[in-house]
């Protein structure tokens, strides 16, 4: 190549004209390939982005699977026409994104309006080293009626207690919980004793039994959706599920049942589906 470069360069050696012709043909072919790759790449990116609003991971709920009973943590009216279940992992960044960006709208427009009841079930994934600690801490907060406050604090502060942030997650989880629960010492003792391990394990087993393989996974009506959702996608699925169920959703917000927080431990005995 060195020789060729010298030959085809700025005329340092004889044979320049012939070599230049060759080079120019080669250049033309090269720029053609570049143009083809560029067009192909742009087309591929355009196609991929046009598909981004589709819900690709939805599948019909297998009715032979165990139904969700009183496990998990429930927010909303027991008379809401639809229960939406989220299988979540406190250390999963996408669950965090859903909880902090989408869920406030879901609560305001759907839960508070009495259209849905939201049930959160732990599904701690194996690659998240501190997610079990977080699930236990949330269960400990639930024992004092503060699950959803702890849920929000855990997701909002993921980067303070996750596997990349610390080797001592319980310390940070205690700091977070102490600002929320009425009885700090009971909460800290609950974390230290790991007394909520069995409860979290029961949630995990339920998710496994229902073939949940990632988080967040939502069960909305007869659909199980294994991906994060935007508010618009979420609402669309809720509306469609309510329409299919034949139940009537409250017409406007404000005229229906208030949002209530029911800890899983205290039991909302209603069946999930």
């Amino acid at each position, binding site marked *: 190549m060195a020789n060729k470069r010298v030959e085809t360069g700025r005329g340092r050696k004889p044979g320049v004209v012939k070599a230049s012709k060759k080079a120019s043909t080669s250049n033309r072919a090269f720029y053609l390939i570049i143009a083809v790759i560029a067009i192909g790449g742009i087309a591929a990116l355009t196609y991929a982005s046009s598909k981004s609003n589709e819900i690709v991971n939805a599948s019909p709920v297998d009715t032979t699977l165990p139904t969700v009973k009183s496990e998990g943590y429930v927010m909303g009216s027991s008379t809401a026409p639809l229960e939406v279940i989220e299988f979540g992992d406190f250390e999963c960044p996408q669950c965090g994104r859903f909880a902090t960006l989408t869920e406030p709208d879901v609560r305001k427009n759907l839960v508070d309006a009495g259209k849905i009841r939201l049930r959160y079930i732990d599904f701690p*994934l194996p690659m998240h080293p501190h997610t079990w600690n977080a699930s236990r801490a949330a269960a400990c907060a639930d024992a004092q009626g503060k699950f959803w406050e702890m849920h929000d604090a855990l997701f909002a502060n993921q980067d303070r207690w996750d596997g990349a942030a610390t080797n001592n997650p319980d310390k940070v989880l205690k700091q977070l919980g102490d600002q929320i629960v009425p009885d700090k010492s009971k909460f800290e003792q609950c974390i230290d004793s790991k007394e909520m391990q069995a409860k979290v394990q029961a949630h995990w087993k339920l998710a496994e039994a229902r073939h949940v393989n*990632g988080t967040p*996974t939502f069960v909305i009506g007869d659909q199980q959706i294994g991906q994060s959702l935007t508010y618009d996608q979420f609402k669309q699925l809720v509306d469609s599920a309510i329409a299919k169920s034949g139940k009537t959703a409250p017409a406007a917000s404000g005229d229906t049942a208030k949002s209530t927080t029911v800890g899983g431990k205290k039991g909302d005995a209603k069946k999930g589906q």
Partner: protein
Amino acid sequence: MTKRMWMALISLAGLFLGVYLTMYKFGIIGSLACNVGSCEQVQTSRWSVFLGVPVATWGVGFYVLMLVLAIAGLQPRFMDSRRLSLAVLLLAGWGVVFTAWLNYLEAFVIHAWCEWCLGSAGMVLVLFVLALMDWRETKQADDEVAA
């Protein structure tokens, strides 16, 4: 096809990969979920952002610069430029160091592999080898001319 042409082609492919991952990072392409050992875990980890800018976007910058340099190197004016060869080599070298750091994080900190990132790592490595060969050849050519 000369080495600089190959470098330009690889850079263009890398550029699209970087743009794809950047769009993915911002949620423009696909929806992310947490699954075991996947790109999502790497892409959503705290290490996916460097100095406030997504790593994928740094990659876009790298490949754009590499593409520009490789194409400039095909022009008669820079055909024999040893400086340009050196610039390409240094850029590719920096790419290798940065990619090695990212792969280390994937292996020992995040404990997950992103296949797109591995693809990019492979391309950076090939770019570096080509840049090294190109630099040695310009050096050789210069020596010949000097002689």
